[in-house]
């Protein structure tokens, strides 16, 4: 088996683990609005290692999953995650993306940007928008970044790849 193919399989395994954590571990943690979003974490990890197109496509898929589970404004999740996936893939060219803390910070910023787009696209009232963006979203961004650090530390070798090279 070639090294590239082995790396891809390792990345797929980590993504599968994140999906299981999202649906099985997350509900056992704190309130849903501040518990880590493992799907978004997986999206950012993937997008930073793949190209912007693949990142946007992955974001669209994650967004559709979110919309199917919470169809308050179907399409808003897809829009937000598509933009986040695309920007995360471009972001790794601008920043030093192999640093653990930078990766975690990327995840935190991506979650906050996702919430901004999602709330605006779903027509949220101004008062609620402020509460979400100044209280709940930052808390969730921190919790997601902390778990992202743990995942990256545990699978550091597996994440040292670039899918598009």
């Amino acid at each position, binding site marked *: 088996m070639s090294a590239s193919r082995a790396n891809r399989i390792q990345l797929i395994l980590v993504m599968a683990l994140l999906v299981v954590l999202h649906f099985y571990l997350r509900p056992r943690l704190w309130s849903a609005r501040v518990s880590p979003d493992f799907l978004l974490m997986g999206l950012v990890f993937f997008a930073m290692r793949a190209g912007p*197109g693949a990142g*946007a496509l992955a974001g669209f898929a994650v967004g559709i*999953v979110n919309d*199917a*589970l919470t169809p308050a404004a*179907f399409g808003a999740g*897809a829009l937000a995650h598509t933009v986040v996936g695309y920007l995360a893939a471009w972001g790794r060219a601008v920043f030093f993306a192999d640093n653990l803390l930078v990766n975690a910070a990327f995840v935190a910023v991506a979650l906050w940007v996702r919430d901004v787009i999602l709330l605006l696209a779903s027509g949220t*009232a101004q008062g609620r928008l402020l509460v979400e963006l100044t209280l709940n979203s930052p808390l*969730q961004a921190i919790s997601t970044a902390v778990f992202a650090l743990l995942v990256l530390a545990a699978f550091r070798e597996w994440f040292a790849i670039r899918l598009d090279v």
Partner: protein
Amino acid sequence: MASASERSYTRRDTVMFLACLGLSLVALFSPSKWGQDIADALRGTVLAPLVWLQARAEEGRTSRARLQAITLQRDSAAFLAQGIPSLAVENDRLRRLLTLSRRISTPYVAAEVLHQPIPTDPRSLLLDVGRSDLVSEFDPVVAPEGLIGMVASAVDHSSTVMTWAHPEFRVSAYAVGGTASGVVAPSFSTLSGEGALEFRGVPYRDSVPAGTLVLSSGIGGVYPRGIPVGTVTGVVREQAGWERVYRLLPAASPAATAHVLVLVSPPGTSLDRAFPSDSAVRATERDSIAHVRRADSLEAAKARGAGSKDTTR
């Protein structure tokens, strides 16, 4: 200088991004029924194992608390079981004395709320029960504190709920102890945010004091009569000579609710007795007292009538 392959790679990325963006916008601005159908299809097929996984996780999280509650209930039930026959007789006698009907036992399905970690979660909740549990569209969903919303769509093993925080939510309601009735809708004023409700269409002449409980009226056929919707906290706005709009503190919070009941009974059932509250009980007492007074006055009138007949005779 970028090579031809790099340029085509960038162009391909841009095309993919624009395609995904376009599809997202189409989904966002398409009729909500289409989105609901796609969401149902996904939840019923590829996402079914993930929903099942989350439902097991929710059960696992709450199982310890449930076991403690069940143990306490069992102990209490064992203690109370000794006096049940005499209590039942006494209860019946007291109810007859107070002219109260029996407490309604409405068919319901208990459900876990599968919260999602996105900000729009409180508007639309995912439940771990579906058509296989006899849940269907338009079934009212309640928490112990009051109304949560109604089932918007249901597939085999899951369903989504349109909560009172959803912009399209409406329920006809009335204020306990008065004649004011109107329609309750989510509030989107800057001051209240999404965490409040509005009691609209109340006639200007009907003043509703702060602290008054507002219940569903049963008009419209979706929500049964008697479910607590909220408590009046003040006036939002008024149109002189026409109507007042009151701000309500919602009775139940969708974001904080872990368990709900889906009422599967046919519409038209009254739930007044299923949600005893201080103000509701006071209103019932007032009604009963008024009923007794009316009966007494009728008796007195009859007696006077009989007396006058006797006098005439």
